[in-house]
């Protein structure tokens, strides 16, 4: 199953301090749903204000992005720039 890593303390507030969780999701959209179901508020937080790094690539706002078995998904703040 894909693994979700939460390096930031702010995200861990939703998971009771858990820094790594496994999800059954096969797409980014499904991931958001599962996070929201298991940790109310986290899915919404990720959708509204965060990006995810999927196997090292940063994705922002990408519902359809597929997740593969063993994918590493890291929750990080959204990235802007100058």
């Amino acid at each position: 199953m894909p693994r979700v890593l939460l390096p930031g303390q702010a995200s861990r507030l939703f998971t009771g301090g858990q820094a790594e969780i496994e999800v059954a999701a096969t797409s980014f959209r499904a991931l958001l749903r599962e996070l929201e179901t298991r940790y109310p508020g986290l899915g919404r937080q990720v959708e509204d204000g965060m990006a995810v790094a999927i196997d090292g690539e940063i994705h922002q706002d990408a519902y359809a992005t597929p997740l593969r078995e063993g994918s590493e998904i890291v929750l990080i703040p959204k990235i802007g720039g100058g």
Partner: protein
Amino acid sequence: MNFVVNKSDLKVVGSRPVRPDGVDKVTGRAQFGADMALPGMLIGRIKRSPHPHARIVSIDTSKALALPGVKAVVTAADFPDIASEEAFVGEGPMNFRDLSRNCMARDKVLYEGHAVAAVAAISDAAAEAALDAIAVEYEVLPHVIDAEAAMAADAPLLHADLFTAGMEPKPTAPSNVAKRVHFGLGDIAAGFAAAEVVVEGRYTTQAVHQAYIEPHACIASANADGQSVIYGSSQGHFMVRAYVAKLLGMDMSNIRVVPLEIGGGFGGKTVVYLEPLALQLSRKTGRPVKMVMTREEVFRATGPTSGGTVEVKIGAKKDGTITAAQARLVFQAGAYGGSPVGAAAMCAFACYDVANVDVEGFDVVSNRPKVAAYRAPGAPIAAFAVEGAMDDLARKLDMDPIALREKNGAKAGTKAAYGPTFPDIGFLQVLAAAKAHPHYSAPLGPNQGRGVAVGFWFNIGGESSASVFVNEDGTVNVVSGSPDIGGSRASMAMMAAEVLGVPVESVRPIVADTAAIGFTGVTGGSRVTYATGMATVQAAEKVVEQLKQRAALIWDISPDAVDWKDGEAVPAGANAGGFDPLPLAAIALKAAKTGGPITAEVSINAQGAGPGFGAHICDVEVDPETGYTTILRYTAVQDVGRAIHPSYVEGQIQGGAVQGIGWALNEEYVYDGKGMLQNPGFLDYRVPVASDLPMIEPVLVEVPNKRHPFGVRGVGEVPIVPPMGAVGNAIRAAIGQRMHDLPMSPPRIRAALSK
């Protein structure tokens, strides 16, 4: 000098054609924001707070309105009182209530220069007189300028409803700390316990402005039927439309924003200041309203980047292997929360493969202008501290500074300090190119020193739209929604020409307004050549498919039997038939007979932008009598993925390095004890000019990003990350002392030398 990895056979990409906007710019014909004029237009001006922190008791505009030539005055009462709502529209999270109140103060002013009213009049003189006639009564409040002072329990409170986000348990009292970020990897205590050598330091940087040469400027024109047009220069006209619509409660479809040429932005033009005021004045008067900031207004009222304090500690084995890295960052946010401390925290140790990391950051409000993005927001501040500590570590270990970085350098498969595992990246190739460069081994003289520092930026993708139109004569237009700040028009034309197989001179690029192209995010985050470029490539590929279909129709064969090669349709093989090649122009000529205009528009949300890394080498000479630092030689090496137009890429690298050198040596906001900015102009706020510097030598390393058809990585932000560290480390080598505080100006160096 290019250090090329994996060069492929490209005809247009990688060449250096004349820039499509060049002639207009060098002849003065290009239209920037302040150059526009409309019939019957009024002049808009802003009345600003003389206090850094005060309650607005009353505003009396009656005398101003009674003056001849004054057509309208607006205050906060003329704008919707917007509820707190976070959104990600520009270059970072934005709270619309804060944005509205930053454009026009409501209830309180939070910094000297905060807008309290705006006027529209028939002339500059009439507008100026109106500003003088507006009577504002203030209740002056205690102020706080320094972020660490603002964190104190007894500091003047800017916002009674600001409770620190990211804290558990949630605070029960408001404070000036808008947000705390904290992340880590591994076990930081175990990492330091395993260390045989530890270095640490406390570094400070000052607020610095992006110092774009063109001040903010726009013209807004509201029609009687509710439709409006805004002409202006910004880093994103769709961003302007979204913010203005929100702040004025209008439908986006009723606002058309037309992008003009932009004289620099560097992140500072990813927000609005004038546009909502100009449009509201136009709605009140029924006439176009033009607003142009003075340089003083740009300094007093638009966003610089944060000043920051960074405490850094790094532990390592005697062989140089880093075992632990820790940092605590305090960043000025200005009057409203939203400093780039989060990005800085993520970037701090991103160049290195470290198992145990702990980074904590604080976003702190104080009575300064709200900060705005500035190239690689936050990253240079963190890098100044981390790269100084790395230099100290190399000295303690008696290691070559590049060798120390190579030993710990991030590569494909490294778990980045901020969490993700890196894909293909070019950091080690960058270090190898820096080490091999003749600069690195050149001899130095007395009072001279050499410094090395590295830097990282994520780079982003995002939403972009592009169209490709084949004209009847076979020439091509490429249309995108990305304001061209760093040469993106040339890059779009080149990528389209490469796909179409035609000379780049036959492809003309333009930037379209918000009603003429699909939504496109701001020009920022080093995203345009990557994301808008990807949209352009895809649109050109669609056009090629159409061209093949048209050729098949002309030849009366299957489209599968047609190939596209060097700008011509050719039979795919001997079985397809013996047709002569059909050039693009010949197919375009028959477009009407084969199905009509040949066009394609593509809108995408590009993902997978490749991270960028750079390494800079700086030689300085420090005058021991005056403390003046001369930059003798500067080399900037960077992984650029693939340089579409190398001259533009080199320009980005040179410009970033120069801005970083100014940040290191001269630039700072100077406040007096009353909270007043003392140096709001280029005489007293000293940016480097050409005569201050040697030629900055850029070295392009090309490790292609596999997610982009031509391997593009963003290039605009990485080059401002290493300079402060590189200059600081060079000065350390020259004078034998570490300068922990920016700017490393002559008085500071003299003071250090006299100790």
